[in-house]
Every structure is written in structure tokens, then in C-alpha cells.
């Protein structure tokens, strides 16, 4: 199976977008996951709901909201453009933003779940050994929540590869710039008789995610503890 230049560009773009989206949203996902797992504060449920929003709303709506906020004419978009020189609209970075937003709830849930499972007593032990709360978090909490962080990253990456509703609504589909693998597949689906190409591209999509999952398993294996009896 040969890819057309546009399709090859879409594959490369999807990889880039999904990777950036996953890496960039991991730190805030850990932060929010930690807040939800460990802190009780007013507005906690609101934060929880907010995080879930992109899951609950049709992706197109999320894309539409992104357009309004981060578009050239959007409140944040205009400001970012004018003061920091950052533009999301019609750029691949915008695609990454859309994917990150869509993947965020999945990542937060997995990470939060893992953090909830970390034994606070071990963090306390680290504290008696001189570790500041931040150090204890880095030395003990994070490594113990590792499976959840990896799971969150895998889910997020897979979602980012598959996402297109929010992406196409926010940054449209510009070949070579914002046309991801998924938007290419979507477009092909509407062309009579193009089914075989659809399956070919789906195969590429699946292969990418399979590789990501293999990488994740490898990451987990390295620290998997043999179960006790």
C-alpha cells in the first residue's frame, strides 16, 4: 500500500500532533489528577465536571468553543497572538491543542485513580526521611502512580490519534498543516468508492497506536513488581 504525499503528510502530522498533545497535557493532567485525588476544596466537583466536559459534549461543540476562545478573533487567541506571538488558529499547534483538550479527561481519570491508590503512609515515611512534600511527590508518589500515568498517556495518545471532530472544527483541515490522519479518513469516507483507501489509512492509524501501546507496556514492564504471595 502506497500513501499519497498528502496522506503521508497527514500521518506525519498525526504523529506530531498526538505526541505534542500527550506530552503537553501530561503535567497539567498530573496536577489536576492530584488535586482531585487528594484535596477537598470548594469547587472540587466543579473542576471535576469541567475536566469531563470535552467527553460529555459532542467533539464539534468542543471545537466550536475552542474556536471562539483561541481563534484569531477569540478572546484568548487574539491576546496570545498579539502578546506572545502564539497562534493556534489553522496551525498544527491548534490541532494539538484540540487533541489535548479531548484527551485530557481520559488522562486525568487514570492518573487520579492511581494517585488515590498510593499509600499516604509511604509519603509520610519519606517525610520523616527529610523529603519535602514536593520531593516526596517526585520520589514516592509519582513512581508509585506510574502505571496510571502511563495508562493516561496511552489513552490520551490513542484518543489524540483518533480525534477529529474538535480538531476539524477548530483548525479545519489544511493539507500539510492541520489535516491529520483522522480528518483524511473522514474525508475519504464521504467519497464514493474510496473505501479501500479508508481501510488502508485506518490500518496506519491502528499501527501507530499499537506501537504506542507496545512502548507503554515496555515502560510498565521495567518497573513491574513481581506479585507477592
Amino acid at each position, binding site marked *: 500500500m502506497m500513501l499519497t504525499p498528502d496522506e503521508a503528510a497527514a500521518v506525519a502530522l498525526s504523529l506530531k500532533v498526538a505526541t505534542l498533545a500527550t506530552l503537553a497535557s501530561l503535567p497539567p493532567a498530573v496536577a489536576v489528577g492530584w488535586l482531585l485525588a487528594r484535596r477537598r476544596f470548594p469547587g472540587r466537583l466543579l473542576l471535576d465536571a469541567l475536566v469531563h466536559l470535552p467527553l460529555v459534549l459532542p467533539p464539534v461543540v468542543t471545537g466550536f468553543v475552542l474556536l471562539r476562545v483561541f481563534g484569531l478573533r477569540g478572546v484568548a487567541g487574539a491576546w496570545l497572538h498579539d502578546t506572545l506571538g502564539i497562534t493556534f488558529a489553522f496551525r498544527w499547534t491548534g490541532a494539538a491543542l484540540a487533541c489535548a483538550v479531548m484527551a485530557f479527561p481520559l488522562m486525568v481519570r487514570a492518573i487520579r485513580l492511581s494517585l488515590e491508590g498510593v499509600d499516604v503512609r509511604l509519603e509520610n515515611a519519606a*517525610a520523616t*526521611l527529610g523529603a519535602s512534600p514536593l520531593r516526596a511527590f517526585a520520589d514516592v508518589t509519582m513512581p508509585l502512580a506510574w502505571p496510571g500515568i502511563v495508562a493516561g498517556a496511552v489513552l490520551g495518545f490513542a484518543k489524540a490519534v483518533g480525534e477529529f471532530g474538535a480538531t476539524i472544527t477548530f483548525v479545519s483541515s489544511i493539507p500539510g498543516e492541520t489535516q491529520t490522519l483522522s480528518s483524511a479518513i473522514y474525508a475519504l469516507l464521504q467519497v464514493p468508492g474510496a473505501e479501500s483507501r479508508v481501510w488502508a489509512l485506518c490500518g496506519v492509524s491502528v499501527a501507530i497506536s499499537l506501537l504506542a501501546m507496545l512502548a507503554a507496556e515496555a515502560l510498565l514492564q521495567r518497573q513491574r*513488581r513481581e506479585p507477592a504471595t
Partner: protein
Amino acid sequence: MSDVVHSIDVTLRRGSFERRLRIESDARVLALVGASGSGKTSVLHAVAGLLRPARGHIAIAGETLFDAARGVDVAPHRRRIGYVFQDGRLFPHLDVRRNLLYGARSNAGGFTLDDVAALLALGPLMQRRITGLSGGEVQRIALGRALLSQPRLLLLDEPLSMLDPDRREELLPYLQGVRDESGLPMIYVSHAADEVARIAQDVHRFDD
């Protein structure tokens, strides 16, 4: 040195458990004995800063760690306490060596990894993962880890309970040595009368 070493007067609350406790002792090594559930571990937690007393104060060797009235509450990681927990609390994601070295400080004249490993017979375990360790092995590593952090106060919660008599016979003199040479204050919880008699200079009995 006849200053007060351990000056504790606190009210501890955990769920339905509540206990007022007053200890004034000028002994370096203070033993806590008492029935199961009488609050010994809770006191150690309070001294370590892991359980905030409802009121009162804690001062060890002249240093105030907690004082509700004066609003003092030193963070646990600043108390420089070596705490051998009753439940071990080794880090499951680190191997034995890295458990021992977690929190280790180098200190002229202090405890070194080699000494501690030799004393506690941990040599063959160094590269082992924590899972699968025997009860006594866990206890010895926990003791080693606490010593290597070069603490200014040792809290020992039944540190030898899972050790065989031979090993215990090796360790007790060592702890006596620590007591006599370094002058490190200790609070020692144990149910073994002989242990208490040999290591502690003062015994606080929890009447239930």
C-alpha cells in the same frame, strides 16, 4: 546532662481514640510500654509530626517540635527524625540499597552504608526488590534506613519484634553503643521486658 530530654504533654485524637499524655524525662533513651492499642504508636507519630496533637507541646533535647500555644509545628521533613515504623514502610519501587540510601546524609562520624549493612547482615539483599522480603528482613532494612538519615532523634516502634534471638543479641549492644557514644535521644517502644531493661534508662508505662 540532667536537662529534660523528652518533654511531651499532648492530647492525641484519632477518630474515637483520645488520650492525654504527659512525659517529662531526662533520660536519653525513653521506653514506652503498654497494652496493645494504648497509644504508643500514636505518640511516636505525634513526635514525628505525622499526627497533629489536639493541644499541648512536644520538645525533645531542648528543641520544640510542636507547641499549640505558641503556634509551633515543625514540618515532618524538617524534624530530622529517624523513625522505624511498626509496619516497615519500605518503598516498594526501590531496591533494598536505594531504600537504605533514601534520605541518607553523609556525616563525619555518622552511620555509613557499609557499617549498617554489615551490622544488619543486609549485604546479600542489596540488589533485591522489596516484594518477597521476610518480616525480619523488612525490619532490619527499616532500621538501617532510619540510621543512615543521620537523625537527631530515633523513634523505634518494636524494631526487633520479628528478629530471631541471635540477631537481636547482636543488635541490642549496637543500639546501646549508639546510645552511649552518639548521645542520640531515642524513644523505644517494645513489649519485650528484657529489651526495655537493657536499652532504656527510663520507662513510661501507659496505663490503659
